[in-house]
């Protein structure tokens, strides 16, 4: 059954405020979720103000600035700062996205930043994605074949290669899965948009010879069919992909195969 509210230890309280000392023209406020395992406090929301004329254009620039200049304990994942590693996925202004590709100017007023929704929190904006990675592993996202290894490589025509367009670009940032209410309510049974997109990527791969077995594995009341086409996944994907479409493709394969 869906738990619509947060458990007692997860209720978010009002936190500290770090206003700018001098008024400036390009002031921007950031309300950021904080939680640390080192004390027994509930999570809280801290409020930071920064001068945008001394900051880069992206939300990631802003939180790095806050970490460097205001509160060095602010914790988040980041690496490539160009939308390819998927580390800085978080909930910004109510929608999951990558902090490094989200422009500060896109948000009017203060910017609310939370960790990816409905996940155990390791610290501040860092969620524990163990379950997410386990599910990815469970769809066996690698090439599986029955025929003998060819002498050179496994060939694929241009046309066949195009069949995995819109899926191979996935960077596994978890924005889609953690945006999905179905995934929130049954993270143990429903595989979630990201894992299913990956599953479909291998189902559609012309070189893979385990299509039927892959479909058998997915043919379950919850793994695929918990998708209600709410469309949060496609709307939040920072790479512009559509896990919803991939899931519909899997359902179609399941319904039409003999």
């Amino acid at each position, binding site marked *: 059954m869906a738990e*619509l509210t*947060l*458990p007692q*230890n*997860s209720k*978010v309280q009002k936190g500290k405020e770090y206003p700018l000392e001098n008024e400036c023209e390009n002031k921007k406020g950031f309300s950021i*979720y904080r*939680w640390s*395992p*080192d*004390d027994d406090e*509930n*999570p809280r929301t801290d409020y930071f103000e920064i001068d945008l004329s001394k900051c880069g254009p992206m939300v990631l620039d802003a939180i790095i600035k806050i970490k460097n200049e205001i509160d060095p304990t602010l914790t988040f994942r980041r690496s490539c700062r160009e939308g390819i590693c998927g580390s800085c996925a978080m*909930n910004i*202004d*109510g*929608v999951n996205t990558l902090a490094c590709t989200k422009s500060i100017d896109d948000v009017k007023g203060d910017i*609310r930043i*939370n*960790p*990816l*929704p*409905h*996940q*155990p*929190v*390791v610290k501040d904006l860092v*969620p*524990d994605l163990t379950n997410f990675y386990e599910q990815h592993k469970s769809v066996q996202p690698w090439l599986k074949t029955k025929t003998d290894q060819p002498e050179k490589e496994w060939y694929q025509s241009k046309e066949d290669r195009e069949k995995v367009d819109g899926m191979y670009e996935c960077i596994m940032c978890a924005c889609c899965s953690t*945006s999905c*209410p179905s995934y*929130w309510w049954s993270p143990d049974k429903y595989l979630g948009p990201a894992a299913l997109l990956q599953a479909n990527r291998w189902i559609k791969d012309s070189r893979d010879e385990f299509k039927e077995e892959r479909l058998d594995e997915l043919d379950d009341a919850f793994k695929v069919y918990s998708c*209600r*086409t*709410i*469309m*949060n996944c*496609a*709307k939040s994907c920072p790479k512009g992909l*559509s896990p*919803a*479409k991939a899931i*519909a*493709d899997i*359902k*179609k394969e399941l*319904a039409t195969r003999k």
Partner: protein
Amino acid sequence: MANKNKIDTIERPMSPHLQVYKISFTMMMSMMHRVSGFVLYLGSFLFLAWYISIFFGQESYNFVNQLFSFSIIKFALFLFTWVFFHHLFGGIRHFIWDFGLGFDLNSVEWLARLTALFSFLSASLLWLL
């Protein structure tokens, strides 16, 4: 202060979800589809009451009809027809999706709008006739 750095033993908070996620129109429509399905189930008892009243003869039939003509109950019946059409058109929307069509973000938005619009129009039309 206890050392809680062992990942497995810490009681971790759950990050906020419904509390912070921006509610989109398609999210609303999905909820409405679920709710309307449930209301349809409840509303079918009204029809049952109507049929059963026929079984008990003219008098009880008139009584139920009278009950249904109260404006507040009439309004509830109107809502029920709206819910009926909402679920019907929502079903058609899902049927289109089952063919793997209409998944780009524009179509998704339009399908949702059309479902809302047509459900309201159909319900109104039925009551005007």
